[in-house]
């Protein structure tokens, strides 16, 4: 039972990584840049939701909308102000700018929100756990332990609402995103831009608008990830986004940077590896193990799991 519990929490954490990794991989695929400020968008999303929820008049659903909106706008503005002027600059200049934006966001948060971590109120606060499993009895769905018909017996497996929500919400979003990219005209334009920006322009595709849209989608996903993550791990600080940002970047590279299914698979695998190594090997070494796995994967398959073979036909 404990294995299932670790596996589920790994899947849940991995789904959150996947949502963040999607932002990295889409932006890399289309704008050909590593947006190292992406992790800090998560942090901003967390604070936006936190501040909105602290207002007594603001219901949770509205706080969620506010957080997604703030991040979407922020992503588009960052692209326009910081990255667009560097569209034809060397990649290193763009990379350094992204790191600069990352520090800027962290320090603005530090100035306005202080370094003291805030306790994030779960978006599923007060909701019953998704699943309770008892030894030899029928499992209970959406039932509080206090309402359990089995008296004071403690469950052998608990899957919290937060864990469940992270998986379900991520699955729905990934399915919707896949449909959007493969079935709509705007999605096809994104694919065209990621393959050949110049040729895409010759089709009449507005590349700048497409890049803006990519940043908007990636940042909106980051806001969703922020709320799911802060609900499961409720401490919010100005550096909250850094580690998940780096892990999600690893997940994107792991899956094959630029590949959307790759980011999903990479994210989920990374979460599972992390949680299982925490449980069975060492909680201190878990991050080291995650990065070790990345190194091994890249040695065996330099383009990542789903990475495209780099071949050119002349």
């Amino acid at each position: 039972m404990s294995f299932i519990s670790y596996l589920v929490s790994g899947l849940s954490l991995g789904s959150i990584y996947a949502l963040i990794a999607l932002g990295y991989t889409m932006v890399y695929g289309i704008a050909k840049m590593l947006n190292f400020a992406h992790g800090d968008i998560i942090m901003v999303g967390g604070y936006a939701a936190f501040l909105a929820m602290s207002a007594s008049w603001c219901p949770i659903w509205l706080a969620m909308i506010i957080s997604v909106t703030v991040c979407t706008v922020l992503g588009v503005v960052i692209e326009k102000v910081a990255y667009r002027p560097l569209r034809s600059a060397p990649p290193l200049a763009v990379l350094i700018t992204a790191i600069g934006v990352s520090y800027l966001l962290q320090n603005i948060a530090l100035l306005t929100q202080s370094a003291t971590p805030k306790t994030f109120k779960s978006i599923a606060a007060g909701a019953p756990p998704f699943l309770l499993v008892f030894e030899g009895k029928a499992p209970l769905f959406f039932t509080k332990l206090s309402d359990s018909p089995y008296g004071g017996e403690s469950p052998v497996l608990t899957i919290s609402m937060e864990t469940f929500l992270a998986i379900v919400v991520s699955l729905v979003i990934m399915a919707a995103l896949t449909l959007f990219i493969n079935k709509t005209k705007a999605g096809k334009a994104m694919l065209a831009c990621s393959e050949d920006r110049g040729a895409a322009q010759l089709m009449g595709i507005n590349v700048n608008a497409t890049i803006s849209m990519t940043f908007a989608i990636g940042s909106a996903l980051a806001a969703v990830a922020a709320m799911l993550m802060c609900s499961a791990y409720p401490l919010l600080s100005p550096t909250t986004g850094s580690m998940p940002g780096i892990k999600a970047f690893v997940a994107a590279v792991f899956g094959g940077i630029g590949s959307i299914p790759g980011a999903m698979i990479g994210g989920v695998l990374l979460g599972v590896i992390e949680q299982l190594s925490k449980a069975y090997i060492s909680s201190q070494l878990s991050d080291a193990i995650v990065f070790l796995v990345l190194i091994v994967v890249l040695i065996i398959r330099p383009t990542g799991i789903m990475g495209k073979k780099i071949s050119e036909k002349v």
Partner: protein
Amino acid sequence: MALLEIDKLEVYYGSINALKGISFNVERGEIIALIGANGAGKTTTLHTITGLLPAKKGSIKLDGHDITKAPAHRIVSMGMAHVPEGRRVFAQLTVYENLMLGAYTRKDKDEIAATLENVYYRFPRLKERLKQTAGTLSGGEQQMLAMGRALMSKPSIILMDEPSMGLSPLYVSEIFDIIQEINKAGTTVLLVEQNAKKALSIANRAYVLETGNIVLAGDASELMNNEQVKKAYLGE
């Protein structure tokens, strides 16, 4: 009024002066060839016309409208299509998806379907390979796809950059036949070619570019017999 008017066009790559003030016209219904050696500025000319490169000086007019400063994506909907050098089909997308991206600026589904039928008619081989990804096509088929994709925007003028490059002689003849057919069906063609002989054989008029300048202009048949052209470009 000419369909495409280029007036004293100057283009720079950084500090390198790639086009030194060239002027030429393309009349409606013509096939115009732009010939010249590697590095003469042929591709630069096409890229500047379609907005992929900025012009430093001079003007480009399409059907009387100044498009010198218009962004590339807007120029497509004004009736100009560009088949780029090296085809640049979207290798990961299917043949059908590539063709539909060609119609990106158009809205009317019925009209798009009609153009698609027309493209199938002209390139039956593409129709057989609709579900295949473009990267798996042969070079000649990719050239056909790039041309079909350009036709999907229903252009009044089509710019073609080295359509014969890297193709077997059999394909080259086929491609040139198709260019003539496209032209006969009413589309004006501006053709850039290193294969000067082939280009001059189907063009009405031609311009010869040398290091950013137009050094010769005239009827294609005249240029074909010009001693200078014969020596430098026709290998005679």
